[in-house]
């Protein structure tokens, strides 16, 4: 890949410093969703990493997705993913989102998040703790930085 020019570098830098997230519940029990929101509140305060919860997929860089994907939400999840602008990342929060978890063989469940959309980071846990979510976010941003530097060198 060609080296980035100064404007691309600035865009990548700002993207790394303020990734906007969108949250979607694809059939979770609410446990992980509340923990995702918890990460935004004073004790964990994910906003100090520049993250901002947005309401629409068109503004978001990172899709934070919880729950085993049910057949009803599968197409909606795909559509939300397609609406996000490139480059985009998906965080699978919770055991259900990673593999389907306890609901894996239910008749209305498609399975883990990766059966529908490509996943960048898996966060296990039932429910995934806010600390784990923060850790995943920071790791995702660090790997992004590394891959961007690798392009330049």
């Amino acid at each position: 890949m060609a080296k980035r020019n100064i404007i691309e570098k600035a865009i990548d830098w700002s993207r790394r410093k303020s990734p906007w997230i969108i949250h979607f519940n694809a059939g979770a029990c609410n446990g992980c969703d509340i923990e995702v929101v918890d990460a935004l509140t004073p004790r964990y305060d994910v906003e100090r990493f520049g993250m901002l919860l947005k309401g629409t997929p068109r503004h978001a860089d990172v899709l934070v997705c919880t729950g085993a994907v049910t057949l009803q939400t599968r197409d909606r999840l795909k559509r939300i993913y397609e609406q996000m602008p490139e480059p985009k990342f998906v965080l699978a929060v919770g055991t259900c989102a990673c593999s389907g978890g306890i609901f894996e063989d239910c008749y209305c469940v498609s399975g883990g998040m990766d059966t529908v959309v490509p996943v960048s980071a898996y966060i296990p846990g039932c429910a995934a703790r806010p600390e784990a979510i923060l850790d995943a976010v920071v790791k995702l941003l660090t790997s992004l930085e590394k891959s961007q530097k690798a392009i330049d060198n």
Partner: protein
Amino acid sequence: MSKRVVIPIGPQHPALKEPGSFIITLEGEKVVGAQVEVGYNHRGIEKACESRTYIQNLYIIERVCGICSHAHSTAYLQAIEELAGVAIPRRAAYIRSIMGELERLHSHLLWLGVAGHEIGFDTLFMYAWRDRELVLDVLAMLGGNRVNYGINTPGGVRRDIDPEHIQKIRDMVDIVEERNKYYINLALGETTLHARLGGVGRLSHEEVIKFGAVGPVARAAGVAFDVRQAEPYAAYDEAQVKVITDDHADVFGRTVVRVLEIMESIRLLRFLLDNLPEGEIITKMPRRIPAGETVSRYEAPRGEDVHYVCANGTDILERIRVRAPTEANWHGMSHMLENDYLADVSIIIAAIDPCYSCTDRSIVIDNRDSGQQTIFDWKQLRQYSIDWYRNRGVDPAKLANRLPRL
């Protein structure tokens, strides 16, 4: 008549964290019709329970909902303990009640925060969720997990409460009580809050009874019903519950009921901790549950939670049905939305504290567009389902012979 506009909201929407779809018909800014479509979270839990043992079911039932997980697991256990004829030790009953009240604390604080967020009062959101963390710390200390505590087990509870734990709970309760006094002042005295919430999403006393609404929605309309008092379970026969009611019958009333219920939970917690009896925390429970059927009721933070369990004498149950509180509250939803403004839709929906993951067992459709309600009787409903499958190339008549007869 002005032109009607139909706005679909959801399933992904900024207002709530769970997928639910609402088709709102507007005349100007006024809502004239609302159609509620749920079912995005339907995972098939009831069916999944029919192929697992009673112990395995406990963990799947706990994950019906991540907020009222203790409510669901206790309701389920009460049912199978009744079928097995097992009485749990008093200490276990007390510990279940303590967990239940702690859960109510965190759930009501959570709701208060979400309601604040919906009306653009984000400071309240941050305050309430910060205080909620203290409750979660205690729940994690007692159960080992922040969300699905897993403290229940057939025949009692898995973990005991030490004097050290009791002290920590007391410390937390003192802080939350102090903070809650501020929320009560806010709810009762803040004029902007009253101006924003008063008269919004009305569901009168008669309508509550007509639609079978439960929990804070019913109590806010003056229906003094609380399962803890009407049919005491666990330790509520000794810990007498004072039922909190209000007569505003709107979102404001629901707010008042919830903040006052936090106070009542704190009082109950202190009583339960003071009177915690000594003794065993678990009693032996048979693996196979004798054949029979029962209904168990539990007052979850959102209202009455009903579990129906049918056992067939083996270690796998025949049928379980979960009637979560939100499911009862959906029926009045389109009436609450009607004649209110579009801007109020999110707070009205949030005011019943909807829990889609609890609810998604059925689909309620109330078509206001044509000005008529269609009511299916059993025959029509059956015919509808047959036609539905036939249109998709499945002939139920041919399948019928292949299904096992019960």
